[in-house]
């Protein structure tokens, strides 16, 4: 892993010079042709922008100054023609730009999302949901915008400036010179201000998120705020933050106001210079009035493209972070991966080769297993041995956060042992694919997680091709059929985002049905701690009793009844298994399990 990281870093350093665009090449390649077309269209657009002032000056010099209307209709026709061509060009430029952006966004999102489906749990434990989510949704759109619009801005504005300069030089080099001299001055001012504004804007954003954090604290901590009577203190501190925010925002406003005013002033000063020098030349008769007006238009119109150009460069620099983060995600290697041989025989995460799959019997064995979490530095299991024969019920007990999930994580191969082996039906779990194992396990989570969609969609999560008969049978088995019958649309009822339209108890029951739909030999249950009403509670207890019968099961237990009847009880404290045995044995030992059990009893009386 470490070696990998180092080489990745080296890679980044090398490509830094290309604004990270080189890493994006694979994503750009499909749109090569369209990108080139877009660049050409952009250049054509800037030609049109350069031409309009020339047309106006033509009217001045050929009709107004000589005082004739001869040829005006031809002029109007050409004008219309140019306008039509420009309209067509504008349309295609904008549309192709937008289309490339959207297509790129889609590809980047797809690549990151699909890659996430192959990553192991350690990745998800080390990166929180919000962080990963913004990699998939927000970095991608920033990159897409950069490639399409920013690139377009760059091409368009750069070529516009070039055309304008060339036209001015051709028309009158003497008058062009002061305008050209003005450009570097303006460029420096723009650059300095944009750098400063970038920094200030970041500060404003940080302060803003601090204030959001304050709101969050005031709301989630409201019980403590009230019982401690510290409303005034909290208010005082909050007002300190909002004051600081206002000051920084006003300072930012001051700088940006100064920036805009200066830039506009420079372009007006450019206009003054052009009028002064140009007026003199015109009076000498060396410049036509129309040409003077062209120069004036250019002097005023040059500032905006310069601003855009420099903004584009800043954006290219700023987008680095997004590209790097995105690339890091896409190149992230999974801690748990199937070997090529296994993939060859059993298929990968997305494509199963079911014809080669053996049925799972349900014998599980931990053989000399030592385990350390990839982000931890302590061994939580050392030379652990445990045989769980087919049909055995294992209960794992311990306090919240004690590390009860470790064993389950190993059985499900969400993690792999640091040393030793987990055997499934006598063979190392790594000898068969993850998908094979997971397709054969039933899993019920502590907080029942449903996906938005219908009840049927959610239940079929357990078995893709389940018929309605099978679904109803599973529902009946765990007494969840009542829940579905109560819904107006039955299996077709929408469960809402995260199943929010159902109660926790109902979600729990459905997740039981989902777990046993495929009639798995191996069952993993994480019992709910949240309180639900007594009737549902009873139903769930019964459901557990029913489904574990005859199956190998691992239960992360919180309820007495489940624990007492288990074949093996493992008590976990501070991440380690401290006791192991049956209920009677452990009670007699009067140790940790005893304390846990008596406490539970009191709570549930």
């Amino acid at each position, binding site marked *: 892993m470490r070696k990998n990281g180092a080489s990745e870093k080296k890679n980044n350093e090398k490509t830094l010079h290309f604004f990270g665009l080189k890493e994006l090449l694979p994503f750009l390649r499909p749109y090569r042709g369209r990108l080139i077309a877009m660049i050409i269209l952009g250049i054509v657009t800037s030609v049109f922008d350069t031409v309009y002032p020339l047309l106006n000056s033509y009217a001045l010099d050929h009709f107004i100054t000589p005082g004739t209307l001869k040829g005006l209709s031809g002029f109007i026709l050409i004008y219309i023609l140019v306008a039509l061509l420009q309209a067509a060009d504008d349309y295609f430029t904008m549309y192709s730009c937008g289309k490339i952006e959207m297509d790129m966004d889609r590809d980047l999102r797809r690549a990151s999302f699909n890659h996430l489906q192959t990553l192991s749990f350690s990745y998800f434990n080390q990166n929180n949901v919000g962080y990963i989510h913004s990699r998939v949704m927000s970095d991608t759109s920033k990159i897409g915008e950069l490639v399409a619009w920013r690139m377009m801005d760059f091409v368009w504005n750069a070529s516009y400036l070039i055309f304008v300069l060339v036209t001015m030089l051709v028309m009158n080099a003497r008058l062009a010179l002061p305008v050209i001299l003005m450009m570097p001055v303006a460029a420096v001012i723009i650059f300095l201000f944009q750098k400063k504004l970038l920094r200030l804007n970041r500060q404003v954003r940080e302060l803003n998120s601090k204030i959001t954090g304050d709101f969050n604290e005031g709301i989630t901590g409201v019980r403590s705020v009230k019982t401690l009577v510290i409303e005034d203190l909290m208010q005082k501190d909050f007002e300190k933050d909002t004051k600081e925010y206002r000051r920084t925002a006003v300072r930012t406003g001051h700088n940006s106001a100064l920036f805009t005013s200066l830039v506009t002033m420079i372009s*007006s000063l450019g206009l003054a210079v052009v009028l*002064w020098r140009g007026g003199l030349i015109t009076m000498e008769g060396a410049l036509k009035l129309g040409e003077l007006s062209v120069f004036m238009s250019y002097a005023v119109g040059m500032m905006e493209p310069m601003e855009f150009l420099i903004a584009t460069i800043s954006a290219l620099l700023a987008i680095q972070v997004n590209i790097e983060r995105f690339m890091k995600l896409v190149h992230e290697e999974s801690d748990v991966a199937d070997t090529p041989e296994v993939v060859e025989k059993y298929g990968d995460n997305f494509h199963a080769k079911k014809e080669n799959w053996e049925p799972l019997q349900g014998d599980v064995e931990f053989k000399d297993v030592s385990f350390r979490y990839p982000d931890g530095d302590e061994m939580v299991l050392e030379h652990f041995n445990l045989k769980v024969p087919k049909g055995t019920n294992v209960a794992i007990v311990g306090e919240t956060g004690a590390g009860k999930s470790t064993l389950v994580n190993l059985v499900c191969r969400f993690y792999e042992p640091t040393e030793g082996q987990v055997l499934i039906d006598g063979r190392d779990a790594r000898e068969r694919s993850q998908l094979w194992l997971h397709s054969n396990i039933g899993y019920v989570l502590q907080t029942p997680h449903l996906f938005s969609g219908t009840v049927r969609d959610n239940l079929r999560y357990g078995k893709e091709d389940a018929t309605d008969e099978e679904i109803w049978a599973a529902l009946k088995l765990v007494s969840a059929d009542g829940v579905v019958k109560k819904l107006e649309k039955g299996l077709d009822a929408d469960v809402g985002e995260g199943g929010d339209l159902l109660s926790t108890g109902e979600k729990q029951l459905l997740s039981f049905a989902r777990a046993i739909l495929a009639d798995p030999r191996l069952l993993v249950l994480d019992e709910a701690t949240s309180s639900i009403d007594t009737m549902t509670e009873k139903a769930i207890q019964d459901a557990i009793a029913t489904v574990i019968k005859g199956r190998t099961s691992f239960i992360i237990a919180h309820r007495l009844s489940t624990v007492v009847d288990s074949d093996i009880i493992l008590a976990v404290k501070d991440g380690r298994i401290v006791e192991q045995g049956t209920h009677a044995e452990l009670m007699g030992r009067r140790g940790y399990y005893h304390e846990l059990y*008596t*406490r539970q009893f009191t709570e549930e*009386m």
Partner: protein
Amino acid sequence: MKTNEKKKYTRRSLLLFFCRGNKRWWLVTVLFALGLTIFDLISPKIIEYTVDSVIGDKEGNIPAFLNAWIAGIGGRDYLRSHFYLVAAAIAIVAVLGAVMRYAFRLTDQIAAEKLTERTRNTLFSHISHLPFSWFSENHTGDIIQRCTSDVENIRMFLSEQLVQLFQTILLIGLSIYFMLGIQVPLALVSAAFIPIVMAASIAFHGFIAPSFMKADEMEGELSSIVQENLTGVRVVRAFGRERYEKDRFEKKNAAYTAHWIRLMGKMSAFWVSGNAISTVKTLVVVALGTYFCVHGSLTPGGFIAFISYNALLSQPVRNVGRIITQMSRTGIAIDRLCYVMNAEEENDNNKALTPPMDRSITFDHVAFSYENGNEEVLHDVSFTIPAGKTVGILGGTGSGKSTLMYLLDRLYELPEDQGSIEIGGVNVRDIDRTYLRKNIGIVLQEPYLFSRTLAENISIADEDADMDAVREASNIASLDEAVRRFSKGYETYVGERGVTLSGGQKQRAAIAQMLVKKPPVMIFDDSLSAVDAETDAKIREALKDKLSAATVILIAHRITTLMEADEIIVLSNGRVAEQGTHEELLKKNGIYRKVYDMQTAGLSAGEKTA
């Protein structure tokens, strides 16, 4: 802010309320906007004069007094020989314009930020004075969104959209005025295009708005698929449904992309037709202008000025539609804030009392049910806690023991006909809320630590407390050992953005927090649950001296924690099931006895085997 403002806000009154105290800033902003627009429009005028009357030889189309003044200094010949004066005039206008632009944008920003600050402060204060029950009825995320993005929306409405609209109207009015001064027919033709462009812009934005809303919606759906996939990663993996997720995502991903591409098509078409109208307008101005020039009713300088004015107008007029569409969304934001601002704050009686608190506490026939639940949590609960005594409460999950404490502290108000809670014979309802809470210390089972240092957290309720007090309290709460393990000790930053403490450490920090304050009534709401039995005993031992004068309510599950209390109450399903001293309750052979046997049975069994 503590006075309870009974008035309900409407959209208009809320907006005015937030703007209060800001009127002068807005007025100044408006004046600067006016100045700025005038200066922007003067330059073309100077150019017109220069082209016609300095380079050319026509009578200057400027106010008479200016003409007279110029004639006074030497007229056209003087200006021709001192041509730099013309440039200087443009430069002066440019500098003055820049000053106006700067002042306008700065004052606008100041006004906006003052408004934001005021709004946020008002909201924060209002929210922290809302009754506790309000927070269980509203989602945290939703409240935060109202306080952040909706406030931002209103800020944008006032400081950007309204101001831009105002600026556009000024620009249109003044430029028409200037153009009319040059040549009336061409000015009228130019002006005629403005309503056309504006109407097209408004119509288009109205037409495209649903598409944008659909896009937002689709993005939301796509985003929530990612969210669900990430939060449900266990389920996805455990059921081996990576393929399904991939397909599900791809379907939405493709649909979303296709929608945007269609939208881009519409946008491009709008953009292009806007450009086309502009071009047609310019063409008409150029062609007609040329015609007028040749016929002598327009000067070449006037022609150039017309083109400049038309260029200045084109973008702002096209933006009107966008601004108006955005403005229409502000109504929703204001409504959402009205909802928060119209929630009623906690309130006291007019003549709230501050009686001595070191008196007996009486619960008299207390019954209670939460607003959102239909089941009664407490039924007819009566007992008395004598002043300075310790009462233990034993009860299972849902037995109502925490609710009792919340009622005592008035986190929830006991309805008048549901019994009474009295301290020294005074109903808590009549006691000043702040006074009451300051004198009752509660250590919660899941205490909340604020984003500050550990020392600041411990002394948070008593600003006068020094480090010694903090240390002493931590010692008693057995927190000192944990503190020593942090490299920064008491200066360790905790809370959301700091070090995460374990449940037991948090509970001990909360105990220290209360000990610093030393209130006459102390409540431990199952606040040693995450601490092991040994530490529990140690803390209780250390607490004994400290608590002697205080009235203590001790809620716990461990008999060893409770047995030394002066009186023990057993709550079951919201009723007082048993009451008495440890010995009395043991004799009763009820719930308490059962729990006691359970907790000690292992002990004896263990002793037997040992």
